[in-house]
């Protein structure tokens, strides 16, 4: 479990506090999406949880570990973090070297590394690029490598800061379903910062950040169907929900339980068949 209590944080040399008395909890083995406008503090919150900024006022704990100077090493054993900019987190000379970087830090035996690297690269469909150098890769490919680097360490908590923003829609779908199945199998908590409504819909919970406060923490269905909230935080509704709203406006009684595109297609087919 990750808990944030009465967090107050101001960037050095800034006057206004970014967070004041912010509290929230993220239960174990959940997929939690964090949404909010540009500059609402999503990345900052993620960095604070990972202990990558000066220790703020208030308490943050990750699986019982307090986030402070003394526990950083232990904390980074538990956490995987994929950052917004894929170029500035690519440390290795080649794709394989980069995935190995975290393993080297954890003193994994060199003869065990190739299998771990192979598996991590397969998870993000980057096996053919194993020997590629970073300047030969596209932004989306670098993001995949960064994700592989985090997955190779088998973290208990995976924090993704817009980690799939450069992937093509199909690739993003593949990577997200990989993550979903990993979480189903194991003990993985996922915190994903995103502007993509489809990614939000995959989560168990959504945290809406607005002006340094948690404006809402709720299921994706309820957040995404709240048109006023969705607009206030700069998201758009997923296509299925927009279509459903349009149908309802036309007087078609679409059941409230339908939230995904697949369900909607199935329901529409049924309706058309029974009426036709």
């Amino acid at each position, binding site marked *: 479990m990750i808990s944030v209590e009465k967090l107050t944080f101001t960037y050095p040399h800034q006057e206004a506090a970014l967070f004041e008395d912010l509290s929230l909890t993220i239960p174990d083995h959940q997929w939690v999406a964090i949404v909010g406008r540009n500059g609402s503090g999503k990345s900052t919150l993620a960095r604070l949880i990972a202990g990558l900024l000066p220790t703020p006022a208030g308490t943050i704990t990750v699986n019982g570990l307090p986030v402070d100077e003394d526990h950083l090493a232990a904390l980074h054993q538990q956490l995987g973090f994929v950052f917004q900019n894929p*170029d*500035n*987190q690519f*440390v290795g000379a080649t794709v394989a070297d980069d995935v*190995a970087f975290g393993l*080297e830090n954890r*003193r994994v035996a060199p003869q065990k590394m190739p299998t771990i690297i192979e598996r991590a690269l397969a998870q993000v469909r980057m096996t053919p690029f194993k020997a590629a*150098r970073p*300047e030969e890769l596209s932004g989306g490919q670098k993001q995949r490598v960064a994700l592989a680097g985090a997955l190779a360490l088998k973290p208990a908590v995976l924090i993704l800061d817009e980690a799939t923003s450069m992937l093509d829609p199909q690739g993003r779908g593949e990577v997200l379903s990989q993550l979903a199945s990993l979480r189903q199998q194991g003990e993985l908590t996922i915190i994903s910062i995103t502007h993509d409504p489809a990614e939000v819909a995959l989560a168990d919970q959504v945290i809406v950040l607005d002006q340094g406060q948690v404006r809402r923490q709720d299921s994706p269905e309820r957040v995404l169907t709240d048109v006023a909230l969705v607009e206030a935080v700069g998201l758009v509704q997923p296509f299925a929900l927009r279509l459903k709203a349009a149908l309802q406006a036309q007087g078609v009684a679409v059941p409230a339980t339908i939230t995904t595109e697949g369900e909607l297609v199935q329901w529409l087919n049924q309706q058309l068949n029974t009426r036709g």
Partner: protein
Amino acid sequence: MDNRALFGMYFPGNSLIHRLDPRLKMVACFWFVVLVFFAHGWASNLLLIVLLLAVIRLSRVVFAKYWAGVRGLMGVILFTALIQALFSSGGTVYWQWGIMAVTSAGLVQAVLLMLRFFLIITGSTVITVTTTPLELADAIAALLKPLKVLHLPVNQLAMMLSIALRFVPTIMNEVTMIMNAQRARGVDFNSGSLLKRAKHLVPVLIPLFVAAFKRAEELAVAMEARGYDPNQPRTKYRQLHWQRRDSLALAVLVFVTLAFIGLRIWE
């Protein structure tokens, strides 16, 4: 830009010389330079020439690549040889004018000096032509290791070297991008006086530095998040493996050295 073109030199290939352990190649190159300095007579020099030609042949790299290395320094070589030829004394005097004189001993000295230059430059070119910068970095890191006893931060140095190599192409791309952005604003980098051209580089260098610092900061945070601690030991994924061919090459080097010593005594 291609990282492998960092020294503008690497020539992809799979020859015996390409496959030799980069540590051995570096040590051998250093040793070759030492021998060059100890070679005085024709016989010992001839031995080194034959050795170098054999290695060049084995590397299966077009000769133009090696020539390119020498050509760049041709001016310096010729100038030094000229000084040597004009200002040495001894032997028969062919021509004299004030303090300048062309003598037989001076000419021999000048030719030997040029030969020495050629040998050293071509000898080091063998390494840059047959070894990728990445292998070189690995070799340097491995060869630095013994300095740990002197409490030098060897691991940190190796990490710095490998990160520098990793970011050279990135920064190069950035230079191109910034220059294009300035060109789009009408800056002309290729005309005007030297001073004017230098001034035009200022609006390239400043954004470059700012971007580099931002990069460095983000990279440091990302490395920390992935568990990097400069003061802790780490394992190493990329291992150098000493092969039989490396032992063989080392044996050849030892025999050449013995022959060299023999020739020096005989000379």
